[in-house]
């Protein structure tokens, strides 16, 4: 019966008459939904890496994240091994408790910042892209690449320009920016943090902020404890250097120096970063906007931040305590076997299409390489950053 139904479909009525090229990442394209169905993360077009079958995602270049984790673990480890026993004996046993709590908090928020989807916008489907193109370019002349396109909207009496993203084939919503490292448009894009190995955007900004604030407390706490420890030892002995060299087995000098140095530099830099981000949160700005000076009115015109609620407390609450938006990229969803997401709408399954091997339009892979109507992606990437 399926074959009979298929015969009656007129291919001319399908909205994407040109078949897209066959894509490798899906492997054997299953024509019936048997065998191992692919999940959508297999065909995700951005430069991200996925682990645990799509549950965890990081940017492709996550090179410095191990360093960040390593520094935190080493410094905290040294603190617990060498400073805590002494301080528990001479001061109070709350020290390892507080230290432990801060350490756990820091590591958890770091991992959450790194592994959470920052608010990636999925790329436009070919139909959407075609519709937008139709609206913009009514001349029908596409022999050359059109100039960068912008659209203006008025938000709270402020004119905001929306740019067209050539890679994702859509007009970027306000405050969205395309990260060239991850090759994704990210909502409320703050910055791409190499220490965390991920973009910081709408969905993980609160994790990032909590991470840097708790890290500043943690490094300040360790720094304080190490200095207290050394001063207590110095009081008991013949000076600081003697205290440090007292007993290599019990208190090795190089390790103390390592702790002090790391903490000293971290405290100032992380505290500074926390302060800066506290300012951003209080004025409902992103790092991207602050750096570009989007709302500073430097060109003399009367511009104000249209997203700010003009109240520090309300701004903080809306940024940090607002509702958690959902992830828009359905990483663990299954690719439809009949690949009818593009052709017949998401709700309709026309099983006949699965038998047609030439029509390879899939929700995911069609976003990987631009279909024939679109301009080549090499031009898109250079302009979309």
């Amino acid at each position: 019966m399926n074959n009979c139904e298929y015969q009656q479909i007129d291919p001319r009525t399908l909205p994407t008459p040109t078949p897209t090229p066959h894509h490798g990442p899906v492997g054997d394209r299953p024509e019936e939904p048997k065998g191992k169905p692919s999940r959508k993360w297999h065909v995700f077009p951005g430069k991200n890496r996925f682990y645990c079958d799509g549950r965890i995602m990081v940017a492709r270049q996550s090179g410095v994240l191990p360093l960040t984790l390593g520094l935190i673990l080493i410094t905290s480890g040294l603190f617990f091994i060498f400073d805590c026993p002494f301080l528990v004996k001479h001061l109070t046993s709350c020290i390892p408790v507080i230290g432990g709590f801060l350490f756990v908090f820091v590591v958890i928020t770091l991992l959450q910042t790194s592994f959470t989807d920052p608010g990636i916008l999925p790329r436009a489907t070919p139909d959407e892209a075609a519709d937008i193109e139709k609206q913009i370019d009514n001349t029908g002349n596409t022999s050359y690449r059109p100039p960068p396109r912008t659209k203006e909207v008025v938000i709270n009496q402020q004119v905001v320009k929306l740019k067209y993203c050539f890679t994702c084939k859509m007009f970027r919503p306000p405050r969205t920016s395309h990260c060239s490292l991850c090759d994704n448009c990210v909502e409320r894009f703050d910055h791409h943090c190499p220490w965390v190995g991920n973009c910081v955007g709408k969905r993980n900004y609160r994790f990032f902020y909590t991470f840097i604030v708790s890290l500043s407390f943690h490094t300040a706490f360790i720094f304080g404890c190490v200095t207290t420890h050394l001063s207590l030892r110095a009081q008991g002995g013949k000076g600081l250097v003697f205290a440090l060299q007292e007993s290599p087995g019990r208190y090795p000098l190089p390790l103390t120096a390592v702790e002090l140095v790391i903490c000293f530099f971290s405290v100032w830099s992380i505290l500074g970063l926390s302060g800066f981000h506290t300012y951003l949160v209080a004025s409902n700005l992103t790092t991207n906007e602050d750096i570009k000076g989007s709302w500073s009115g430097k060109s003399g015109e009367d511009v104000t931040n249209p997203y700010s609620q003009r109240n520090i407390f309300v701004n903080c609450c809306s940024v940090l305590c607002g509702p958690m938006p959902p992830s828009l990229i359905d990483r663990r969803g299954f690719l439809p076997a009949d690949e009818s997401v593009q052709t017949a709408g998401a709700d309709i399954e026309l099983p006949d299409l699965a038998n047609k091997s030439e029509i390879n339009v899939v929700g995911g892979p069609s976003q990987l390489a631009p279909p024939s109507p679109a301009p080549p992606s090499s031009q898109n990437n250079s302009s979309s950053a």
Partner: protein
Amino acid sequence: MATEFHNLQELRHSASLANKVFIQRDYSEGTTCRFQTKFPSELESRIERKLFEDTVKTLNNYYTEAEKIGGQSYLEGCLACSTAYLIFLCMETRYEKVLKKISKYIQEQNEKIFAPRGLLITDPIERGMRVIEISIYEDRGSSGSSSGSSSVSGSTAR
């Protein structure tokens, strides 16, 4: 020319996709999720303006409810912060609950209102909350589909 379908099942079996209309986001109030209520011209002959506008307005209300910053969201946020956000792994957030309501609403609307008129709404979450995609179907036997497809193929043949 209004194509009559009696239910969603009939739509699935006897219709072919003619065109898609995209309702874009309305950013005039900021980055909160709202869709434009402007009635697209392609739907003139298909559905009453009021029905369409009511659907979009209801969806907008649902999204406003999901993104409302008030007592409950503060509580959720503070609780989440105190547990290092681990609670998000176990608990369904209010936003997700509202999204489920929206999905049900869209399905209901499709079954009751849109499918009998040869239309189908796609849940915006499946399009990254960028657009409401409305698919327009023609009866397979009708000859009107060729005009729809030629306009679509014209736009995709760039």
